[in-house]
């Protein structure tokens, strides 16, 4: 050590090289790691046999954030060094040197990618369009094993937080360990059942009410309780925790949601509906003091008017807010999802 100033630090190559990877940390993530505010990191990588174009991708997820992982090759030789003791041939005192224990030809970069799990869920979760959906599985045509939300999350290219958010948006529900994605018309039916049940029992949905009472009515109409709960989660006010037996629905959430669900269920059956018919239907499906809020403004970006006083569901104009809407046109989104991945591979 005493001669270090003169002769420097011995540098050697370790014969048995380790397999290490270098991962660049964006400053936000670094800060989370070093301050120990982060409990959990998960690397999700596609398996070779996984479907379609998502296969080239890997993502790194925190609890509520997703980073796309990009491998960047370097033409430079990058070594990871570790202090090591070396015994010089002629000396007795071992000197401390540096040993290259690994060479890394590539660095992994992280690109923050606010991921919406919505398109993935639409691709993955079986569609629930009525009680018969449950009995159809598994059939010869759809021999899929049961998948609950947890199993789907394992495969989803996004974080837990983003996954849960999308599940709530889409009212994904679970029955007997199988997750389901309700169709827009299914949601519209559930809502009809809720609103008529509430009227019948004079339950004010906008204020606190007992879920159990309403749950029974909706169940009698043939809807799964879990689906009813999912709708309640979707529409309940943020400031009131949804407790076991108590909820209040938010006007800001419910009015546009009902409009959208209705418009979409029209979209699935017919091409276009008369605007006046639609608005009337919408208002009829709302609490009385919510009806004034049933304006087209609430559906901004989610519709288009092809003329003749008609309205159709169309979210192409609402790209900015598109990912935050419940139950959208699956076909449209599927395509976007692929495009997204195609871009990511370049």
């Amino acid at each position, binding site marked *: 050590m005493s001669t270090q100033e003169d002769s420097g630090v011995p540098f*050697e190559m370790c014969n048995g090289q380790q397999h290490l*990877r270098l991962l*660049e940390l964006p400053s936000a993530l670094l800060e989370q*790691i070093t301050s120990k505010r982060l409990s959990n990191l998960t*690397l999700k990588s596609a398996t070779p046999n996984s479907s379609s174009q998502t296969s080239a991708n890997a993502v790194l997820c925190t609890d509520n954030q997703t980073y796309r992982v990009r491998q960047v090759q370097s033409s430079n030789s990058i*070594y990871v*060094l570790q202090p090591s003791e070396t015994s010089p041939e002629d000396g007795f005192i071992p000197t401390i040197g*540096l040993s290259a224990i690994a060479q890394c030809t590539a660095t992994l970069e992280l690109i923050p990618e606010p991921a919406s799990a919505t398109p993935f869920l639409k691709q993955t979760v079986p569609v629930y369009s009525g009680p018969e959906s449950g009995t159809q599985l598994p059939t010869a045509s759809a021999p899929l094993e049961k998948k609950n939300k947890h199993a789907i999350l394992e495969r989803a*290219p996004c974080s837990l937080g983003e996954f849960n958010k999308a599940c709530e948006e889409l009212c994904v529900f679970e029955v007997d360990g199988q997750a389901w994605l309700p169709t827009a018309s299914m949601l519209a039916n559930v809502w009809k059942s809720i609103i008529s049940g509430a009227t019948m029992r004079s339950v004010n949905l906008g204020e606190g009410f007992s879920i159990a009472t309403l749950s029974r009515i909706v169940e009698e109409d043939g809807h799964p309780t879990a689906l009813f709960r999912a709708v309640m989660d979707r529409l309940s006010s943020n400031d009131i925790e949804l407790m076991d037996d108590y909820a209040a629905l938010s006007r800001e959430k419910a009015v546009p949601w009902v409009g959208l669900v209705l418009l979409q269920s029209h979209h699935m059956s017919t091409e276009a509906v008369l605007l006046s018919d639609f608005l009337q239907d919408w208002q009829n499906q709302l609490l009385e003091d919510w009806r004034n809020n049933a304006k087209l403004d609430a559906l901004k970006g989610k519709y288009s008017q092809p003329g003749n006083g008609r309205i159709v569901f169309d979210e192409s104009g609402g790209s900015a807010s598109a990912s935050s809407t419940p139950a959208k046109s699956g076909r449209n989104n599927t395509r976007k999802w692929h495009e997204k991945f195609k871009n990511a591979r370049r």
Partner: protein
Amino acid sequence: MPSIPLHLSPKDPISTIANPLPRVLQTPTGLAILEIQGTINLPQASPSESTIPIGRLVFPDYSADNPSSNTAWMKRVHLYVGQHQRLTGEVKKLPKAVAVIKRRETNDAANEELEIMEIIYWKVVFSSRPEPVGT
């Protein structure tokens, strides 16, 4: 998409011996990054040797007594390769901190787990050609 947990710290802390590097390059586990534009041609290694000596790393302007605010020494680092060549480089802050990741040793071979061994902020980089030196 199978999920692989990435642990934020190593399960088995690396036992470190004294670190011969300047303080700014020292990390808790002793790991550091050295980058060379080019490759080191290694002699044929005899399998019995655990290491192959390459040369020496010298920080000519560094002194442990320097205040940490003095960074002038970072501009000059020498890597002597073998007997006759010398690379000149510098100590640089990495644009982004880099996590060194390895596979965690587990009993369960089916479930892969990864861990961050260390987070490194600085590197020694040699980007110029080697120059001949006499011995």
